[in-house]
């Protein structure tokens, strides 16, 4: 990946027009120049030239960012802000020899799926003891068995059985010889540890759509959380491991129902592994196969919903930044939803505004993160929808938390659960 010093030309492209102030979710909340891209780029430039050091203030402003990419999208000069932020985070972690954000947490938990499994298993067993029941906190959400910890924050419980251990996943160790499109399914941590149902629904739909789907069991975390917290070395290891795991199979597509993992697999892997030219053709072949599940279903498998019952009246859709902006997938999830004759669809205002979770922000600055969510929740409330569909487990966690916190009675579901 490009180092901070190599991005000087990119920094110089910024003409200080201020257009990025109109879209930045952290700037909306904080209302200070230091929060928007123009300010951040100024600080990163000053840091690169030695005008300021790795000060607390510098690190704080670096972290006040969801890496949503809205600034990059709107910048008339096409400044690749996100590449600069990532490089600055990596640089800081390297210089400090310590985490900018929560990289230590990831180091311990995500290094290999085994360590993480073991840690989480223990946590699962303890869960009943340490998490309170949501219903005790709020009758509103009695439909959800979600626990509440600290600050009234709603966190999803760990699954009783992780997705990769379910019979649905384990029963599909390798592609069958059916002659149909061979699709390898990448679960990702959100689906594996928190939302196995999303994984199961994905497998079911892919089968229905005529794919020969299978789930490589040795897959590990995609490394995006580590990468966002500046730990490129960790992300690199994970990328390499996943590359090996998936290369062992002959498949036409690698798909995932997590927007962030999809973006990681498709783009971040190439970025963190770019230091090794020998890998470039392998990475290229790998990335070319990665496709988000919505895009795969619509554009390749031509799937249309058979008319599933959703149990709700009105559905709206939230665009995950890592799908909409990072992978250019906007219409496909909407098309899928609209193909279900039992769904009445309504667009919310600002469907593309960030939910607030990204960039490690919900870990490093929960208050800011959930305040960003507020605007989203207001849009949902105004839309009148009782089901919010989206296509990223990360967004799902944040939206559930936000709906609970701001008292809106709507259910969050993944697109694949509604079609």
């Amino acid at each position, binding site marked *: 990946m490009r180092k901070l010093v190599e991005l000087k030309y990119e920094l110089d492209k910024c*003409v*200080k*027009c*201020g*257009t990025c*102030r*109109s879209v930045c979710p952290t700037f909306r909340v904080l*209302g*200070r*120049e*230091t929060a928007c891209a*123009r*300010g951040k780029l*100024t*600080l990163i430039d*000053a840091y690169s030239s030695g*005008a*300021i050091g790795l*000060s607390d*203030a*510098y690190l704080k*402003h670096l972290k006040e960012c969801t890496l949503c990419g809205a600034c990059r999208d709107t*910048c*008339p*000069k*096409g400044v690749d802000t996100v590449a600069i932020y990532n490089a600055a985070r990596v640089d800081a972690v390297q210089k400090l020899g310590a985490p900018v954000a929560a990289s230590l947490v990831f180091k311990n938990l995500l290094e290999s799926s085994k360590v993480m499994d073991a840690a989480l298993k223990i946590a699962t067993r303890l869960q009943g003891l340490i998490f309170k029941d949501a219903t005790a906190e709020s009758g509103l959400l009695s439909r959800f068995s979600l626990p509440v910890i600290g600050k009234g924050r709603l966190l999803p419980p760990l699954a009783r059985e992780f997705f990769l251990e379910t019979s649905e996943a384990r029963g599909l160790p390798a592609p069958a010889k059916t002659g149909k499109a061979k699709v390898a399914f990448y679960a990702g941590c959100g689906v594996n540890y928190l939302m196995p149902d999303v994984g199961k629904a994905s497998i079911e739909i892919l089968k229905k759509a005529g794919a020969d789907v299978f789930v490589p069991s040795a897959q590990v975390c995609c490394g995006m959380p580590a990468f966002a917290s500046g730990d490129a070395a960790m992300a690199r290891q994970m990328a390499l491991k996943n590359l090996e795991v998936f290369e062992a199979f002959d498949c036409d597509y690698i798909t995932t129902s997590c927007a962030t993992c999809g973006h990681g697999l498709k783009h971040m892997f190439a970025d963190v592994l770019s230091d090794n030219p020998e890998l470039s053709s392998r990475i290229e072949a790998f990335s070319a196969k990665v496709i988000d599940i919505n895009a795969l279903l619509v554009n390749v498998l031509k799937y249309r919903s058979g008319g599933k019952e959703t149990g709700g009246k009105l559905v709206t859709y939230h665009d995950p930044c890592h799908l909409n902006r990072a992978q250019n997938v906007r219409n496909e999830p909407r098309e899928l939803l609209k193909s279900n004759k039992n769904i009445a669809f309504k667009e919310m205002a600002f469907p593309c505004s960030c939910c607030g979770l990204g960039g490690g922000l919900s870990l490093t600055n929960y208050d800011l993160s959930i305040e960003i969510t507020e605007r989203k929740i207001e849009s949902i409330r105004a839309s009148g929808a009782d089901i919010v569909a989206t296509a990223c487990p990360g967004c799902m966690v944040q939206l559930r938390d936000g709906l609970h916190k701001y008292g809106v009675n709507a259910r969050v579901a993944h697109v694949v659960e509604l079609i």
Partner: protein
Amino acid sequence: MLSEIVKRELKRIVGEANASFAKEDLLCYSYDATNSPYLPDAVVFPSGAEEISLILKMANSEGFPVIPRGAGTGFSGGSLPVEGGVVVSTERMRKIIEIDTENLTALVEPGVVTWELQTEVEKLGLFYPPDPTSLKFSTIGGNIAECAGGPRAVKYGVTRDYVLGLEAVLPTGEIITTGVRTAKGVVGYDLTRLLVGSEGTLGIVTKAHLKLLPKPETTKTLLALFPDIKDAAKAVSAIIRAKVVPSTLEFIDSACIKVVEEHAKMDFSGAGAVLLIEADGSAESVEKEASTIEKICMESRASSVRAATGKYEVKDLWKARRAISPSLLKIRPDKINEDVVVPRASIPDLIAGIEDISKRHNLLIACFGHAGDGNIHVNVMYDKKNPVEAASAEDAVVEAFRLTLRLKGTISGEHGVGTTKSRFIEMELGPAVIDAMKRIKATLDPKGILNPGKIFPKANGPQKAGFAGAGK
């Protein structure tokens, strides 16, 4: 440099969290869209007039500059702390206090972003017309201080025409209320108008009472392509002559078209110039006006005129139009961006004259802008690193100013003088006028603490921000 006592006092006035002296913060309040930074000594985020009053009083007694700042999107260096001092940001003052649907007025704080006000009033069927291209990120306070205008000015006028009254803090710290709440009012001098466009040098606006209009029933957007730029310019004059008043009449030349085609992936099939025209009002009158405009364009040798269909196309067209200015730097590394205005009938002469200047200096000059009111943004494209080009670019600009003044125009329609144009105001204004302005300034700001180094040419002051660079 501020003394420790001043720093402590500033913190006491605005609160610990709302005053900063940290380099990180100062860096982020050192620039505006001219992209030529000057580091302030402090940045403060006051909550309203009382705090600002205390700061200004202290500035007078302690002798430090105070620089008002909105979003820092100015094109003339108005919010740059050229002599250091305390930047007063209005970022915390972003409340829409009241929208009065009976009297069609709004009362807002200066840090409100123009687009946010527009969105709110439009929900109530009302309309705040001033629409600088930066409307999604510039503030009402900045708009007032620069008297910002935009495409709709041709029909609806500029910010000045919508300011009924102000609450402002004078440089010496007195809080005043100007203007009236009525449609008329002639008691005393019109201080509201004096403050509007004063570039933050005569007072800090802390509240603005704005005029609203009923929202026009409908709008129609037309796109006219012209093979020859001169015909497009003539069509503008012909439309005005025909007594049709479109709500916007934007002009885009071929260099800008190219950028738009690339940035927004739009196809204008090699046109030499494009006019983007809107008519608004009742459905009936809009149709009538649109067909008159279409006829005039075709008579002026347009190759095609068509209506933009659907909300998305219109949105895309405007997005593309708004992106022109910053995107221009994709074709050449640097540009000097000026916003000259000529009487509308003289637009063809201006365009022809600019083409001539461009040829003579062998420099690409990209033109676009609010042709409907005679305001054309002239962008001289060059490479700063090439000294010969840089010198002729400056010459080209001065020639463009001379041309403008010959055509009885003005050298800045919207962006203001600030630091970038101060050395040129003598070209336009006579010595007696400049002297009168200086006396007004000296009376209201005897110590010269409010936004010093702006508007008036300095004998030997800092002139780093030579030209408007970032461009609009």
